[in-house]
Structure formats: structure tokens, C-alpha cells
């Protein structure tokens, strides 16, 4: 029994996992706005915001 019979399905399954992640990204609309996120990473002070958020709501 060659290792090929195990390795190939595993390789394809790993690839399929990647595919699944990609499909999820598409479905949740993560590719819709590539513009805002690239700025958001530079500007947002998220930790502070979320603290306030939990306090106020």
C-alpha cells in the first residue's frame, strides 16, 4: 500500500479546507470593500472603543 493513497486525499482535503474558508469569505462579503479595511487598520483605536461600547450599552 503506497503512501500516495493516503497523502493525496489528505492533500486534497487540506486544499478543500482552504477553499471552504475562501467561500465563507465570499459569502460574508469580506471581499466587498477592500478600500475601507486598508485604512481601518491604520486608524481605528478599537480596544478603547469596545471598552466604551460595553460600558454604554
Amino acid at each position: 500500500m503506497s503512501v500516495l493513497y493516503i497523502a493525496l486525499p489528505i492533500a486534497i482535503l487540506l486544499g478543500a479546507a482552504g477553499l471552504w474558508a475562501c467561500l465563507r469569505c465570499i459569502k460574508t462579503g469580506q471581499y466587498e470593500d477592500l478600500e475601507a479595511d486598508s485604512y481601518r487598520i491604520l486608524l481605528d483605536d478599537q480596544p478603547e472603543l469596545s471598552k466604551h461600547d460595553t460600558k454604554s450599552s
Partner: protein
Amino acid sequence: MSPTLEEACNRATGSTVRCAHCGLETQVSGRDTWALQEQASSEATEGPPKYFCCHGCMGAYSLIHQLGLENFYSLRALLDQDSQPVRKTKASDSLKNLRESGVEVQTLSDGTCRVRLGVEGLHCAACSWLIESLPPSIPGLKSARVRLSDRSLELLYDPLRTEPFRVAEYLTKFGYVLGPMHQEELEDRADRRLRQEHWYWIAIAFFLAANAMWIAISLYAGEATGIAREHERFLRWVGAILGLLSAAFPGRIFFRSAWQSIKTRIPHVDVPVATGLLVGTIGSLIGAATGKGHVYFDSLASLVLLLRIGRYIQFRAQYRSGMSIAKLLRFHDIEAVRVTAEGQKATVPARQLRPGDRVEVRSGSMIPTDGVISKGQTELQTAFITGESRPQRAMQGQEVFGGSLNLKSTIEITVLKSAHEGRLGQISSLVQQATSDRTPLIQLADRVGRVFVWVVLALAIGTCGTWWAIQGPSVAIQRTVSLLTIACPCALALAAPLVITVAIGRAAREKIWIRDGNALERLSKPGLICFDKTGTLTFGELRVVDWSGPVELLPSVEAIQSQSEHPIAKALVEFIRLENAHAKEQVSACLLKAHSVELEVGQGIRGIVDGREVFIGRIDSQSQTQTQRQEQDRTDEVYRKVGVFVDGNLQGVFRLGDVQRPGVAKALSALQQRGWKLAILSGDDSPHVQSLGLELQKSGIDLEECLGGLSPEQKKEHLDRFHALGLTTVMIGDGINDAIALASADVGIAVRGPSEIALRNAPIYMGANHLELIPRLLDASTNAVQAIHRCFAASLFYNCITIGLAATGYIHPWIAAVFMPISGITVLLMAWTARTFPPHSKSLTQTTFE
């Protein structure tokens, strides 16, 4: 949270002023950044300091001053007494009742609401940061996420503690205006779903293709270096399964549409494509089962991938052009300010208006739909609907039509018909119908497309058979697949409808409404154009031709005639005012007052100005004998003479007539240059028809016929006679009294009258009284038909070459799959860029009517 934001909130208690530019309420405080004192143009103004809500407004204000346009502000105040800050009401009111504004609110499982709103004034990352920093300062707002790509904002909020309206109010302070997403944006959302689906399948196809290719590589490597028989069989099977999956899932769309086309017996582009895929699938199954020959599953999977990508690109291109056409044809997508019984105002799209609603129409905006004025009076520009180019007075209780432009002051109307039933809605649906009509050229394209599919299938069978016999199945299958993939009649099927639709849409921009796409095809070759005289070549009403007499007399004439409603009086007054404006002579016209003005029916008008008795009227009645009068009548049939008598002495004479529209001669000679023959068919029985003909002949225009005194039936007979001579007959006239002639001509072009009646009688209606538009329309038709022919030629040429190459084996299936969308997109581009209506040239815009 940020300090600036906190400051801004604290400041909310300060005293308020109005922004000098936009009128928005702003707070004043010493170190206030939001209420800026004017610094930029201190030299431009004296007086009290001006306040601005933001730098943008201050910039606009100082720019307006620098350009010397400060009258803008006083004019604005003058025109619309109640010009309140428009932006604020717009932002908040339309959000007060979300359901009414057509905003979709999602309620999540934990009771939180999610809503997506459009944001105006969003410029850059800083804006999105500012908005996203909001939640802590508004209790109940959980999160705000900005999407820059379509300028929208998603709010997550607790409906018990806050509502989008409050957020909107808050954001208005910062200069961001929230509103419901517009129709276009909603359509964009439907498109986004489709786009996601495309991406989804492309991702799957890519995964399958990439894996299949690796397996194919191992097989090729195994062939070169030696491979165990069982391993080879295993790899073949895995590859075959991947290929099959690819054909079965991402490739399903092609099989499905091919199956539909077979079921409905309408051959479709996807039939050859699906056949190609099927051949590939069978090939790869045979390969896997027998373990012989080349492998196809990698080709199959990559073919599916490339075809899907091609489909996506085509979808994008089609969608874009479709959107632009939709925009071109969207005439009635106007916003309206609805006033509720309690006097509250809300901005809603016009299509939501129902009969009985009260709507406020500000000056400068369009009346959203047909209704009756219930408050106020104004002047309306109704050229869009009735072809009347001069502003019309509209009083309370008068019926007004959607699409009219409110020129003067704010009015309130009570809606009579919903936007779809109103005139504007009817016109746009008539025009929209035209874009879906199948004109002869489109039908031809359809037929050719169908034949094409069968020819391709036959060629494919031939290719397959020949190569099978010569080089065996593997070569045969590969070449057949390439041929089936690259042959693409879509260019044929797409080009003609697209060109016609684009032309109709662009024509609508020029206020030429085309109900019937056939008209465009018919106008592409020269024939005979018949004109109606009254109202088409002439103004259709009395106007002053000239005035012989002292200029000083004119103010007195105006003083008397402005008290009369008679058509002649109106013509005289208009002429004198025009003269005054022309000479820039502010003669004290308005200071002169006429006393004891008396109308003498059939004779004229008498009055006392400046202590002198002035009589304006028939020359014969006072100073001429009976014989002279008869003589006068005979020579004076073309022009009417009106004399001005001061204390019984004839001092000056006006000549009045139905004057030729300016630019008629120019337009007619432009038509002649294009090879069209011209004729006048008029119902007018006066010698004026002949004199107009002579006048035109003097300016170098040959008229085939110049007939007056025709009844509508006689006009039709003449048109039929011309038609029998083999000429394309075009009738240009006004929509009502020429109805029969317009309908019986090959192409009827209506130039006046209510447009939806005109559109029913004639396939083309011109909303603007530009005769110059006719040459443009003819050019547009010629260009459109030529563009269709060009697309046909390009498509046939492309297909002949590529099918030849594919059959002889010069094109691999992959390359074929790449080429397929390219051909389609090229044709789309050719159709879209066809210069059906080239941009206005200078000479055309300058010689406009009134």
C-alpha cells in the same frame, strides 16, 4: 473616544447661528472649530461677521465671492422665501419613518436591529473613522461600520433605546447626511449577490482545476520517468473525478442553459460550449477507464474555470452597460417632499406617492407626478411634457404635470395620479418598451445566430470525424473542444439590441423620445421629409416682424397694450420688452400710465397716455377709404399691419406675422446635404405657405412640394403618393392636428403638443423645439445602423478565422476559452462606444431657440 468628538458634543448647548453658505444651524463659541468666522475673504464683505458650519462651506463662500457671484445669496433668498437648510430636513425626515422610505430593517436574534443607509459627504478614511467612533456617544448604538466603496453605513442598534433618525441628526452636525439608499444602490445590492455567486463558483472551479493540473503533471512526469501501473490508474481516477466534479458543479450553468435552449428549440451560444464540455468529460472518462491515451480532465477543469471567468467578465460588462442604460432611461426617479396631515415633511421617492398625497415642490425642483396646485402659484417650465418652451404661469387649483420644472416659488400640490400612471411615467414606459422591441436588424441577428449554432455543430462533427480518422481520438477530441469553445455567435446576438437601446437612451437625453426602435433603422437612409408649417417651421402665433416709426412711441404702446390680453397686444408687448432689453435702454416704460383704456372690438384699442390720445389698431378703419381698404387686404394677407395713431395721426406701423423659427433654413440645408428631399405639407390656406417656400428657396433650399390648404386626409394621400415612389417618408409636425399624417408616414416625428399623445401618434417625439436636432437624429440613426453592421462584420470575421484555426489544430482549448469572452466584450465595447449621438458642437448649442 476622541477628544474632538467629546468637544463637539459638549458644544451642543452653545448659541446657534446659520451657516452663511448652506444655512445649516451651527453653534458659536470662542474656540469653536465648527463655527468658523470668515477669514478668507475679509476684503470682499463688510458688515457683521459670517459664520460657517465647516471649512467646505467657507471655501465655497469665499470662492463665490472671488468669482464675483455674491448675487447668488440674495437671489436665492429672493426666489425662495422659505429656503430653509435643505440638507437637514432631507437627512432626518426621510429616516423618521423607515418603512415608508423603503429602508429594510433586519432584526437580529438578540433584538438588535441592523440597517444600511447611504451617507453623503463621505470622502476619505478620516470620515469613516469619525463615524465609526460614534457608538459610545449615542446610547443604544452598538456599532457603525462604513463601507467606502458604495458610501454606505451599516448601523447596529437597540431599537428600544435609539433609532437611525437620532444617529442621522447627530451626524448632520458633522456634515454627513444620512438617507435611505437610492434605487440604484438597491439594484447594486442585487448585483452584488450575483457577483458573489460568480466569485463562489470561480473559486471552486479554480480549486478543481489547480488540483487536476497537479495530477496531470504527476502523470506526465510518471510517463517520462516510469510509474507503477496501479499508481497511474489511481491518479487517473482521482483526476477524472476532479474533472467530473468541475463539469458537474461549476460547469453546470452551461449544461443548464444548453438544455433550456434545446427544450425551447432556440439555439443558444451555450449549446456548442456544453457539447464541448460533454466531449471533454466523455474523453476523460474513457481515458480513466481504459488507462490509454492522453488525459483530458485537466483540460476539462481548466476549461470550466476559464469559461466561468469569461462569463463573469461578460456579466460585469453587460451589467455596467445595462446600468448606464437604466440611468439614461430613468426619467421619473425623482424625490418628492411629502407633507403629512400634521404638516410634517418627509422626503420620499416619487414612485411611492399615492393620489391624495400632498407634496411640496421647491423652486428649481421637478414636479414629481401629476397633481393640482393646492397652495401657492409659480411659473413652470413644461417643455419636457408639452413641448411649450416658454415658462407657464400656474395658479392655485390648476392641474400640473410631473416632469415640469418649478421655476419661481415653492408650491404645494395634491397628487392626482401615482408616478406610474402620470404622464411622465407613461412616456418613460412607452420609451422603455421601445428598447425591448425586436427591430428587423435584431431579428436578422437572431436568425443568423441560430443558423450559426447549427453550422458550428456540423463543423465540429466534421472536425472530430476527420481528425479521428487521421490522428486518433485524442487529437480529434482536443480540436473539437477548441472549435466548440471559440465559436461565439454572442457578438451577433448582443450587438444589435445594445446599439439600438443605447441610441434610444441617448436620444432621450436630448429630449427626443423614441417609442419605436424601427424608426431608427428607417431614418438611416435618406428619403423625403415633409414638414408641417404652423408651429413646426414657424412659431405658430403672431409675432412682430418689424416696426417702422419713432422709438419714443414704444413705451406708450406698451402702457396701453399691457392692459389687454389680446394675442396682438401680447405680441406687441413682448416685442417692445425685447427691444428695450436689446437696446439696454431703461426707458421709463413702467412710469407711463395709460388712462381710460377702451377696447374697440375688431378695430383696436384706445387710451390716453401722457395727455395724448393713442389709438393702436387697424390702419384702414380711420384713415383709409373703402377702395384703399380692399387693396390693402389683398396685399396684406401675409403680414398684418397694426398702426399707432397719436391724436388721430398715423405715427408708426407694426407688421405682424407667423414668423419663421430661427435656424430653420440652416437645419433644412443640413438635411439637404445629407441627401434628404424636403417638402412642406401645410393645412394653412393663406399665401404665407407659398411665401415661406419662396423665402426658403432664396436661402438655397429646394422643396419638392410646397402645398397649403391640405386637410389631414389630403396630407396622408400625399405621403402615400411619395411612399409609392419608393421614398422613405418622414412627417414632422405637431402631435395633434397632424395625427393622421404622422401615423401614416414611415416615420412620424411630433414636435409639439402633449408628449404622450404625440408618442402614440408618432414613434418619435421631440420635447425641445430644436429643428437642429433633426439632422442629429438622422446622423444618430445612420451611425447606429452602421455600428450594427460593423459589429456583424467583426463578429463574422472573428469567427471565420478562429474556427479555421481551431479546426486545423492551431488553438488549444484553453486559448479558445480565453478568446471566447474577449470577442463578446469587444462587440459590447464597439456597440457602446458607437457615436450615435456625438457631443454637441458649438454651433448647435449657440443657435438654440429661446
